C-alpha cells in the first residue's frame, strides 16, 4: 500500500533489544513521542488508516449485537486489536499474501476482502469464504497455528519462482505459539530464509489461559532467535508503530541487505477488550480492572488524537468519515442479509468433478425434500 522509505524503522528494529519495551511512536494519549519519527505516510494514507480502524470498531459493535439477536452465529470480537490489524494490512503491497485467523476481520477487509462476504460466513454460508479474484488472501484459519507452515510454504514458493516483489504476512495469536505447527513453520522459515512476516497478536489471553501459561519465555519475540529469524516487539495498540515495524519487515523480506535474514516474527503487544468469542464469558477467568487499564491506550483514540494534533483530522473530516463507514457497514449488512443459500452448496467444490456416489447421495436427499418439504428438515432433534 505504501512505497515510502522507512529506513529509520529498519534501524530501530535492528537495534531493538528483544526484552526491551515494545517499539512505540505515540504515547498512551496519542502524542508523538519526542524520540520517535512518524512513518512517512501521506495525509491521505493516514486518514485511510484511521477510517479503516474506525470502520473496524463500528463493524465489531454491530456484529456483536447481531449475534445477540441471533442474526449471525458465533463471532470473535476484535475491539482493542483493530489498530494492529489495520496497520499490518496497510503495510502490505497488493501482491503480498495475507494468512488471517478467525479474528482478523479488519486485516482481511483492508487487504481486499468483502465485508458482506464476511457476514455471509457468519450467517453460516460457506460462499462467504470465496476470495475476490485479484486479492491475495486465504480464508480465515480456525484450527490454531495451522496457517504458520502454510504461509511459510507460500513464501518459499514465491521465492523459488523468482517473485521477488511478493512477501507473505501470517497472523497468529499468542496461544498459537504453543502449537507444534508454530515451531515447524518458524523453523522452516529460518532454514529456507523465506520472505515471510509472522505477526503474533499477543492479546494476553488464549480463551481463559493467560500469556504466562503459554510460554515461560520472557517475550514471544525472543523465540525468533532460536529459529534464526528476526524478532521484534511492538506496541500493538499504536497503529503507527505497528505500521512502521511491519512495513520494514515486509521490505526486508523482499530485499534483505547483505547478511540480513528475510523472515521476521513481530510480537504485537495488545489486549482483547471483550470476550474471546460471543460464546465466552471473560468474567470467569479475568479481572475487569486489567481490561480497563488497557483501554487507556486505545488504538483508535490514540491515532485520532495524533491526527487532530497534526491537523490531518478535524471535526468536519471526522463526521464525513463516520457517515461513510456507517453507510458502508449498513450496505454490507443489507447485502449479507438478502443473500440466500441452497443445499447444492454442500456438495459444490468438494472435488473439481463431483463423484457419482456423492451426487447420488445428494439426489436422494433432494427426493426426500420434495416428498416431505423443507420444514421436515428444520431440526435434527425433532
Amino acid at each position: 500500500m505504501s512505497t515510502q522509505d522507512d529506513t529509520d524503522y529498519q534501524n530501530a528494529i535492528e537495534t531493538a533489544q528483544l526484552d526491551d519495551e515494545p517499539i512505540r511512536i505515540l504515547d498512551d494519549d496519542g502524542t508523538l513521542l519526542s524520540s520517535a519519527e512518524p512513518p512517512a505516510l501521506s495525509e491521505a494514507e493516514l486518514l485511510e488508516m484511521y477510517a479503516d480502524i474506525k470502520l473496524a470498531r463500528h463493524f465489531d459493535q454491530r456484529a456483536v449485537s447481531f449475534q445477540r439477536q441471533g442474526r449471525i452465529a458465533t463471532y470473535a470480537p476484535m475491539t482493542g486489536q483493530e489498530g494492529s490489524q489495520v496497520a499490518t494490512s496497510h503495510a502490505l503491497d497488493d501482491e503480498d499474501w495475507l494468512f488471517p485467523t478467525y479474528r482478523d476481520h479488519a486485516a482481511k477487509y483492508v487487504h481486499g476482502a468483502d465485508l458482506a462476504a464476511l457476514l455471509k460466513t457468519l450467517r453460516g454460508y460457506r460462499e462467504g469464504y470465496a476470495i475476490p479474484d485479484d486479492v491475495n488472501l486465504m480464508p480465515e484459519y480456525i484450527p490454531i497455528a495451522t496457517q504458520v507452515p502454510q504461509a511459510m510454504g507460500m513464501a518459499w514458493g514465491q521465492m523459488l519462482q523468482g517473485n521477488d516483489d511478493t512477501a507473505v504476512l501470517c497472523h497468529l495469536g499468542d496461544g498459537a505459539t504453543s502449537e507444534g505447527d508454530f515451531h515447524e513453520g518458524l523453523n522452516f522459515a529460518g532454514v529456507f530464509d523465506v520472505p515471510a512476516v509472522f505477526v503474533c497478536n499477543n492479546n494476553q489471553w488464549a480463551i481463559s489461559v493467560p500469556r504466562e501459561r503459554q510460554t515461560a519465555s520472557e517475550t514471544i519475540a525472543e523465540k525468533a532467535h532460536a529459529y534464526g529469524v528476526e524478532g521484534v516487539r511492538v506496541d500493538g495498540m499504536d497503529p503507527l508503530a505497528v505500521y512502521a515495524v511491519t512495513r520494514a519487515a515486509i521490505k526486508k523480506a523482499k530485499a534483505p541487505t547483505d547478511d540480513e535474514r528475510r523472515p521476521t516474527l513481530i510480537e504485537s503487544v495488545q489486549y482483547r477488550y471483550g470476550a474471546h468469542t460471543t460464546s465466552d464469558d471473560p468474567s470467569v477467568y479475568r479481572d475487569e480492572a486489567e481490561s480497563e487499564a488497557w483501554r487507556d491506550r486505545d488504538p483508535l483514540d490514540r491515532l485520532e488524537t495524533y491526527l487532530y494534533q497534526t491537523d490531518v483530522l478535524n471535526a468536519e473530516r471526522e463526521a464525513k468519515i463516520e457517515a461513510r463507514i456507517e453507510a458502508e457497514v449498513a450496505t454490507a449488512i443489507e447485502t449479507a442479509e438478502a443473500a440466500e443459500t441452497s443445499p447444492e452448496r454442500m456438495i459444490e467444490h468438494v472435488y473439481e468433478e463431483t463423484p457419482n456416489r456423492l451426487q447420488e447421495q445428494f439426489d436422494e436427499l433432494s427426493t426426500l425434500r420434495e416428498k416431505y418439504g423443507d420444514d421436515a428438515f428444520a431440526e435434527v432433534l425433532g
Partner: protein
Amino acid sequence: MSSAAATEAGSMTERLTLVEGVREGLHTEMERDDRVMVLGEDVGKNGGVFRATEGLYDEFGGGRVVDTPLAESGIVGSAIGLALSGLRPVAEMQFMGFMYPAFDQLVSHAARLRSRSHGQYTCPLVVRAPYGGGIRAPEHHSESKEAFFVHEPGLKVVIPSTPADAKGLLTAAIRDPDPVMFLEPKLIYRAFREEVPQKSYEVSLGEAAVRREGSDISVYTWGAMTRPTLIAADNLADEHGVDCEVVDLRTLSPLDAGTVVASFEKTGRAAVVHEAPKTGGVGAEIATTIQEEALMYQEAPIKRIAGLDAPIPLHALEDYYLPQAVRIQDGILETVEF
C-alpha cells in the same frame, strides 16, 4: 429426593444433563482415586468451554485440574507420559476437529504402547472430545470422525447417548487399563435430563444397549443420532405399524458384535444411522459384520442413513447434512418394504 428409598445412600439420584453426567463421572472418580487428573485447554478456571469440568478446579486445585498451553500433541503426549508414570490422566480435546495435532501421539503411541512393549507398559489414558454437528458452530467445530479412531487397533472408542451412560461409561473408561477415546455428542449435551445415580458406578465398555425392542428391523446408531432414531421409530410405529428395534452401540470399538448380530437374527433387516460421512464410516463395519455372521437371516439390503461424503457445511445447511427423523424414517421404510 422425597421417597424413603431415595434417602438410602447409594440409591440417591439426581436429574442431570449429559454434560453434567460427564462432570459427575470426573468428579466421583477424582474423589475416589487421587491418581486421576484432568488436563487440557481451558479446563481449569474456565471449567471447559462446555463447562464439562466446572467446579473441579475449585475443588481439586490447579495441580489436578490443569490448564495446559494450547498444544494438542503436547497434551496427549504428556498424558501418555503421565499414564506411564502411574497417574490416570483424562485429557480434554476442546473439539474433535482440533485433535488432529494429537493424532500421531494417539495412533503411533497410545494405541500401541502395550503391544510395542509386549505387555510391559500400558497406557491407561482417557481422551475426551465433544464431537458432531447441529449446534450452529463455526467451521471445524462439527466433525464426526469416530471412524479414524475405530480403525486403530489398541484404542477403545466410546460414545454415550444418555446422561446416566455418560457418567457410567466415563467411569469405566477411567478405570480401563487401555487408552479410551471418549467422544461426547455435544448436540445433546443439554438437550434433556434424566435420573442419574449419585453414587459412583460403571457402565461396561463394549456393551451395546437395546433402547427399544422391536421385531421388524434393527436400527443401529450411537451418540446424538440416537434421539432422532427413536423419534423415527415412534413415528413409524404410529403411522405405519412398523416395529423397530433400536440398538445404541455405546462402544464403537471393540464393537459388541454379539448384540448387533442377535438383534439382526431376530428382525432380519437392518439400517445404520450415523452423522459421519457415509463412505468408510462405522456403518460399513456394522453392515459387513452382519453379512459375515448372519447372512442367512437377511431379508433386505442393509441401509446406511448417514452424512454426505462432503465436509459438514457451515450452520445454515447443516440440518440438510445430518440425518433427521424424516430421512431415518424413509430409509427404514424402504428397507422394511423391500
